């Protein structure tokens, strides 16, 4: 069953899948050949991607691509569905602490135009609903809600407001106007504690004034009340504490996986699969136990390959730190095709990678993790973490990938790039990746190629 690591096209995966089946591959209920996602779900983009050839990667992809189907099944089975929006990592921990409830991010619809190569026309529909291309691709969420056919309509919609992206906030407000009631909660813009002010340490080497932590804790108490009411069960401290422990289990696995892959002299797993694996942290792809199993499988694969000295990108590949998720998954393949590899990342939810403190009252711990959101604080805080992780991961270059239309991208790139250049002096570029980047491939490729070459040229001879 085990083969040397390599990347396969979808066509090649057909054969590989048959071989794995013959060899006795055991799969979870959502398993099957990757091809079926193209046939049934019209995920045409898969035909343009290069996948890792391991059974662990197969399980990861099948897990990701069956989320809507699994959500519909859960709804049919009587479970309550919570649509968490924008906070990327906090509310799902709370929702998943309740029996019979599961949470997902409708925000995730931003990848649908990419996966379906815009054949779903979600972006065009969003435009007809008042949200044109000046908004982030997350606008795909709006027609996905209105017209169905993707995820089930949640029983409860919870959205953070305040220090969030304008485009997302505007889209969510439009959604509410269209009749989808939203439970709003405030996440204030995180600031550094003033002189003489009581400070609370936050995950990620951050700090916030106690007043802000108190504020967010009170807001999360309201969220807990709404979730408990939905589930018909009080979301008390015991349940929350158990939920936090389980979330931390997934976060610990992901941390080990990131260390195993990003820290290795060469890459045992590809950048694309690592991006998807990191995404599991924010809401466990609607199934926390399965997330733990999927991450465990990937970690075992990465460790085995590293032990055997088997890699998908060699030691000669330029070590790139990547900032922001890509609207087109193909971009991660492209980086490796051009001689780069990922040695660290900030996909906008580093707070969902950090462990939630277990030595604090649960809501206090969750408030601190929510405030540690890199998008809620000063851009310089985010840049400082990027610099630290670049140093730790021996990054040779940084890519800040802009999300088309995203309000935060207008300014943050300039600040991050300036701090990276000033503090560690490695080459860095900013580039924009649309949901389907084929038309821009030549210019993207030249920019990435130039970065990779520059990074390599700086190596000591």
């Amino acid at each position: 069953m085990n083969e040397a690591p390599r990347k396969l096209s979808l066509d090649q995966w057909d054969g590989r899948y048959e071989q794995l089946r013959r060899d006795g591959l055991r799969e979870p209920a959502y398993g099957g050949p990757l091809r079926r996602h193209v046939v049934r779900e019209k995920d045409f983009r898969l035909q343009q991607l290069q996948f890792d050839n391991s059974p662990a990667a197969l399980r990861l992809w099948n897990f990701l691509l069956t989320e809507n189907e699994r959500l519909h099944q859960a709804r049919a089975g009587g479970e309550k569905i919570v649509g968490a929006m924008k906070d990327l990592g906090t509310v799902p921990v709370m929702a998943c602490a309740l029996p019979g409830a599961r949470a997902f991010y409708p925000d995730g619809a931003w990848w649908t135009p990419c996966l379906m190569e815009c054949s779903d026309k979600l972006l065009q529909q969003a435009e007809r609903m008042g949200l044109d291309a000046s908004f982030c691709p997350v606008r795909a969420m709006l027609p996905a809600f209105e017209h169905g056919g993707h995820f089930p309509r949640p029983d409860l919609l919870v959205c953070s407001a305040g220090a969030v992206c304008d485009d997302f906030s505007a889209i969510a407000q439009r959604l509410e106007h269209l009749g989808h009631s939203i439970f709003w909660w405030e996440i204030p813009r995180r600031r550094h504690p003033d002189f003489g002010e009581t400070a609370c340490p936050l995950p990620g080497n951050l700090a916030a004034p106690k007043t802000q932590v108190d504020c967010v804790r009170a807001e999360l108490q309201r969220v807990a009340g709404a979730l408990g009411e939905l589930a018909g069960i009080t979301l008390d401290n015991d349940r929350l504490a158990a939920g936090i422990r389980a979330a931390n289990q997934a976060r610990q696995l992901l941390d080990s996986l990131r260390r195993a892959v990003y820290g290795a002299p060469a890459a045992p797993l590809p950048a694309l699969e690592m991006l998807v694996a990191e995404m599991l942290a924010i809401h466990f792809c609607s199934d926390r136990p399965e997330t733990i199993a999927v991450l465990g499988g990937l970690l075992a694969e990465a460790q085995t390959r590293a032990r055997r000295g088997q890699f998908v990108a060699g030691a000669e590949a330029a070590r790139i730190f990547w900032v922001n998720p890509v609207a087109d998954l193909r971009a991660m393949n492209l980086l490796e095709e051009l001689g780069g590899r990922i040695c660290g990342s900030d996909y906008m939810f580093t707070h969902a990678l950090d462990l939630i403190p277990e030595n604090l009252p649960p809501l206090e711990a969750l408030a601190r993790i929510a405030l540690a959101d890199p998008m809620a604080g000063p851009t310089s805080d985010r840049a400082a973490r990027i610099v630290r992780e670049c140093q730790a991961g021996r990054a040779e270059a940084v890519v800040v990938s802009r999300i088309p239309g995203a309000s935060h991208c207008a300014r943050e790139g300039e600040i991050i790039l300036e701090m990276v250049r000033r503090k560690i002096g490695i080459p860095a570029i900013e580039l924009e990746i649309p949901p389907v980047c084929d038309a821009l491939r030549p210019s993207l490729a030249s920019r990435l190629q130039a970065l990779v070459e520059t990074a390599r040229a700086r190596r000591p001879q």
Partner: protein
Amino acid sequence: MDVFLTSPWIPPEWVRAHGLQPRGLGSAENFPPGAQPLSAGICAFAEAAVRFAEARTDGAVIFSTACDQLRRGFDTAILRGQRRAFLFNLPATWQTAAAGRIFRSELERLGEFLCAVGGRAPSPEVLRQEMAQSSRTRERLIESAAASSPRGFAEAVARFHWDGAFWPPPPAAPAKQTPLALVGGPFLAPHWKWLDELEAAGGRIALNATEMGERSLSPVFELEAGADGMRQSSTVGRDSVEPKLDFQGKSQGSTESRPAVTHPVTDAFRANHAFDALVRGYCENIVDVFQRPNTRLYSWLKTRLESRQARGIVLWLFTGCDLWRAEAQTLRETFGLPVLLLEAGAEPGAAPRELNRLQAFAETLR
């Protein structure tokens, strides 16, 4: 010292009570400062605020978190070395006590900042006087709004935001023009001539609901009747749409006490009626697009669009402003009125293309 405010929801009364001069940034001379090269997605207003902060090192600039662009603009200003800048966290939510507590706490912080840049600790009486004064001016401006010349009214409101003074706007010339509403973000002096052009094309702004218009006058204070003649409660031209909230410093449901703060008057002010009225006066009356939900904006608009018999809406925004842009369709659906989207770019003043569109809109509705 001049303290420039990037939002009408940062109380100038509080700045003035500290012995400093609040200035609405949008009313400043030469603002925005000429054409600026803009990176993709950057709002020209936010960029102008950053450049202004860089240049005016003799004053302080107070940014707000009302939008991502200004919030991150503050980050840029700090990175570029501006030390007299402050970021005021305006809560987006408003239906819970948390919003009031945030606003209150931000005012206290702002007070510390103002003292640090040369202000003096205010007395409750001074604050009360400042509130009474600005309240009277706001009322007079609101009372004059419907019958004023659109340009004169825009100038009068800008003047109020600049120095707090009341300059009576000239009355509107009687004419059979199509009444329109101007809704949106900051409408600055270089854009005022559009109002004249619109009138020439047969339209008239009957409701200026921009950030530099009537909407910016919505704060109202409930002070105990005193020698200054402050009324108990104001209703003139205003809506009381929400129940009163607990804006006291103590968190509901929290057993922990607030940390010590260093503002020299905070403790006195915490129990002070004027300060409490200031917090309530803003929190309960902010009318803006960034609030979640933004139903208060729509309630405010509904009353006025009806009473001014507006036949169309001109939605005014700076390129890159997602918050206002996303409202175009909702405005159409909610009010059933035609909506024209007008964008201000990097060039100050009226772009010919946009002016043409405005004229055509007025003609269409005639």
